[in-house]
């Protein structure tokens, strides 16, 4: 070494990084995977099986389960049941909708429907059919029998029976009018036990229930009435454009009205009204029903809303 050369600088020695910290990277990756798995298996809602007679329009891994217009689950697989009578639709509900999987819940498939006087489910022409539900309050369960058509929403109402010689153009959900205001609807129509009469099951919403008295008169308001008389000329009348198509029932209560009708009261359904009935206009207090009888649905309560769905 040359003695004249200046001394070389000396490299510094510093502290090393903690290289065990590097192992936190795979640990973090494993945690991410664990989080994915937890979301799939622990925080997921229940998987339910719904048996439909016909799953027309549902697609595996694609169709949705909706409730009140909101997605609450997804359809998984569609399989034929063992007896080949039904289609088993497996659906994965969201965790927030776990409460829908209860006994008494009624599932049906919303399809486009074009019937006389009723168009429904038109959005499904574009979006595909989906499953929807009317929740029940029973115990938790994972197996359901689906129905074919939307059940008529139960409300507090007075149920009555009407006996008619023939059906006319009535069908489920045909309206029941009082002074041309809809106060109820037809629930179902069937042939009487001895096949001599048609039995129509209808309901009057509870706020209008006092209008129905034991001596009220019911008549079929559907179709057109054409009356041609020698002196009065031609007289054409129809209740409304709606009843013209879908049929309807109208009733009137005489001024000397009797007691209010009770559930299951049987009336006869006349084919057309008499002029006298349409002139009846008795004063009936609609608030005569004692408050205790009225069973109102609970009002929205923020405490219930926060904790997810409550049936």
């Amino acid at each position, binding site marked *: 070494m040359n003695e004249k050369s200046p001394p*070389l600088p*000396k490299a510094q020695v510093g502290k090393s990084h903690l*290289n065990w910290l590097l192992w936190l*990277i795979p640990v973090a*990756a*494993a945690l*991410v995977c664990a989080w*994915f798995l937890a979301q799939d298996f622990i925080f997921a809602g229940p998987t339910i099986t719904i048996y439909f007679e016909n799953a027309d329009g549902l697609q595996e*891994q694609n169709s949705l389960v909706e409730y009140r217009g909101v997605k609450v689950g997804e359809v998984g697989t569609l399989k034929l049941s063992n007896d080949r009578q039904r289609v088993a639709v497996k659906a994965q509900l969201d965790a927030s909708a776990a409460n829908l999987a209860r006994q008494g819940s009624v599932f049906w498939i919303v399809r486009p429907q074009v019937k006389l006087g009723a168009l429904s489910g038109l959005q499904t022409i574009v979006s595909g059919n*989906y499953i929807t539900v009317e929740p029940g309050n029973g115990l938790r369960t994972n197996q359901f029998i689906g129905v074919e058509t939307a059940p008529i929403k139960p409300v507090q109402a007075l149920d009555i029976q009407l006996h008619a010689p023939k059906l006319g153009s009535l069908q489920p959900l045909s309206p029941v009018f009082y002074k041309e205001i809809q106060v109820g609807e037809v629930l179902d129509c069937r042939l009487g036990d001895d096949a001599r009469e048609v039995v129509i099951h209808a309901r009057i919403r509870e706020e209008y229930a006092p209008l129905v008295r034991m001596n009220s008169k019911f008549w079929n308001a559907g179709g057109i009435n054409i009356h041609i008389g020698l002196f009065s000329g031609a007289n054409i009348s129809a209740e409304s454009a709606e009843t013209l198509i879908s049929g309807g029932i109208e009733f009137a209560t005489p001024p000397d009205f009797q007691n209010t009708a009770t559930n299951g009261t049987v009336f006869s359904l006349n084919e057309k009204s008499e002029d006298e009935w349409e002139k009846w206009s008795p004063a009936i207090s609609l608030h005569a029903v004692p408050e205790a009888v009225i069973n109102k649905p609970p009002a929205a309560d923020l405490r219930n809303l926060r904790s997810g769905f409550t049936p």
Partner: protein
Amino acid sequence: MEKLVACQTCGLVQEVDVAPKDSVIKCARCHFQIFHRRVDSRVRTLTFSVAALILYIPSNLYPIVTAEYQGHHIQTTIFQGIHSLFSLHQYFIGSLMFFTSMLTPGLKIIGLIFITLTLDWPHWKKARTWVFKIIRIIDPWNMLEVFLLAICVSMVELGEVATVHPGRGVFSFAAVVVLTLLATLSFDSRLLWDSSAERKL
């Protein structure tokens, strides 16, 4: 024992003491690290590769995108995408997708793990070199993954027609891309032929 070392950044020739364990040597002038072999190369490559291997699983199992179009609800994983390309008779693009987004990341990750784990065994030197050659060949193709991400981004741009959510798969896939990149960067290929005596320096 003292040695003369030239800094790789500024070129200053300086004396270096034998550094105690768990310490780093810094240049007297520019304070950059001076190393004989890349610092912690083995541990870093191993940790990044293991993390990438773990995330490789969800990136292939979970959907890349979830698209909602007028109530239709479509989820696609990488494999389903490749499958549908094949069923559309797009064999070239389909196989390109398969090689670049499924095969090469997997091979590369496994190869890096194999190399880092077998470094202590001199008999495996030949196999290590062979694996490293394969990694060098497939490495440029790996960069196509980034294009896959670009395709995903362009699908998200569809937002006005359809609602497109990036799925869990795409996050894991992005993480795999970044982690394999870091693993390759921190790997010092000189480790391949180092004898155990040389690695102690």
